[in-house]
């Protein structure tokens, strides 16, 4: 067992444990903290796969920005066990059936996926490096890249329109 494997199992344990804590913990703030731990573990996985850019973006965007937003919303809403709304049992049943159907579809889709035949590249491979990403972005995908500027511009104009008195 070399260091990479030890790291892999460690990160996997943290990711799965964190994900379980997200759904099992009663306090929503703990859920969010567990989710952050999960994201950190996933970023570690990305680094193991030599996808550094993805790892950093995952940390900045998810663990950084989005989770802070989550925390703020939860703290503003002041959720706790006393104010938890009673859920309709039919709603619970419907949710279980819908989730179960989705699981069934996923299992059916992934059952004969060829994930076993292609091994992941660990510690090598340069697909995830920023250099290659930049090259792809400015050669092959330059049109979508430029067009996304319109999207961001319109979002900024919108934010100003909504924020201005």
């Amino acid at each position, binding site marked *: 067992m070399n260091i990479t494997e030890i790291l892999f199992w460690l990160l996997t344990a943290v990711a799965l444990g964190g994900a379980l804590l997200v759904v099992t913990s009663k306090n929503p703030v703990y859920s969010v903290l567990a989710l952050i731990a999960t994201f950190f573990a996933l970023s570690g996985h990305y680094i193991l796969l030599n996808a550094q850019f993805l790892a950093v973006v995952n940390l900045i965007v998810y663990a950084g920005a989005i989770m802070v937003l989550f925390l703020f919303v939860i703290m503003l809403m002041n959720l706790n066990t006393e104010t938890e709304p009673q859920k309709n049992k039919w709603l619970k049943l419907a949710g279980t059936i819908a989730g179960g159907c989705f699981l069934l579809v996923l299992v059916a889709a992934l059952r004969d996926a060829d994930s076993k035949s292609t091994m992941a590249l660990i510690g090598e491979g340069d697909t995830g490096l920023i250099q290659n990403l930049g090259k792809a972005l400015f050669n092959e995908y330059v049109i979508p890249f430029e067009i996304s500027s319109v999207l961001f511009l319109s979002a900024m*104009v919108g934010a100003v*329109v909504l924020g201005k008195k």
Partner: protein
Amino acid sequence: MNAIILSAILGVVLMFTGIFTTNKSTIRAVAVGGILLLLLANIAELRGVEFFDINTRGMLVFTKLGLLFNTIAFGATLLYFLLSARDVLEVGDNGADYFALIFFILCGVSIVSSFNTLLLLFLGIEIISIPLYILTGSDKRNLKSNEAALKYFLMGSFSTGIMLMGIVLMYGARGTFSIDPTLQIANAGRDVWYTSGLLLLFISMAFKVSAAPFHFWTPDVYDGAPTVFTSFMATIVKAAVFIAFCRLFEFSYSNSGYDWKLIVAVVIAATLLIGNITAIFQQSVKRMLAYSSIAQAGFMLFALFSTSSLSREGIILYSLGYSLATIGVFAVLIKMKDYTFEGFNGLARTQPVLAATTAIFLLSLAGIPMTIGFFAKYFMLASAVKTGTYLWLVILAIICAAISVYYYFRVIQAMYFKEGAGETVAISSVFRWLLILVAGLIILFGIFPNMILNYLYF
């Protein structure tokens, strides 16, 4: 490409107009001039003149259908600006910014009418959606507008998530974002990814065009948004998403190796029934028009059901007829003091021109012969009949069209046969002439639909 670049630039121009002037008539003039320029640039491209030589690497393909649709969308926006630009400026203090957002939406419209890869479909749909969330909530002091915007934003983001999941699955199955079957690599055993991805994409697009059972946001959002923006949302934007929908499924249907007709047929039937039957019970004309837009979406979905040259002609006619008539009805509705059916009582006596043109718009929406609405519905149903299957669906559609006559005629009845004041705000004579122009166009194209359809081929 002319339209995409120019509309983005015009959006920026209008932003800057807002900095340098607060004079409303200047802003209006710039907006109308801008859309006119955009329309001319697009017609130039339809005639083969491209201003920009850009290698799109096959990510954008400009077909006659897409360019003709752009022309219709920009023409409808021009009429919309002429009829309602004054009301756009009255929604809030950021008049120029609203126009900038509308130009950004038009950029999205010209992307989704010519996309050839799922990446650009996603970007186009988002460029359309995000400004729409803002416009829905632009009446900041109105609680209903705020509620509508939040609802639209949350549900819209959710459907965007579903769309992304679908795109990911389709990328995994074919190794490319392109929708062109010749560029795709068939991976054995991954067809089910492709099909489920396409299904997720179908769901999110059906949400955007408010097809049942994904229509729940529509009445609240259309009712809560400022009426001028409802008009834009319900017409140009909706038709654009339909064009994207048709483009996507034109290639992907046969490519997925799965028979989609049943799913589409069930969605059409549900949309028609829910839209038409719920519209009957509405007391507010604005809400009735929201449900009627769901019902009309059911007819437009026939273009997906039978992907043929006939249905392509149909969707062009439908987007033209539906946009013209709905923009006209909403332009009149904005001028009314009371949005309920009673508010229209006796309008024929106080404002005969408004009443007559509104009657023509409603007749076109109901699909009465001599108006473009008739040929639009005719082409859709004829294309469905030609596929030779699912005859029950066509019969259901005809019954639903008959039901729709009831609630459209309620407005006409209120205007002509009921006593009342029919109060409106002050109406300028230019506005009347413009309404007559729109009504004239509806009748003109209703008698000679080929005037438009010829452009698809020549």
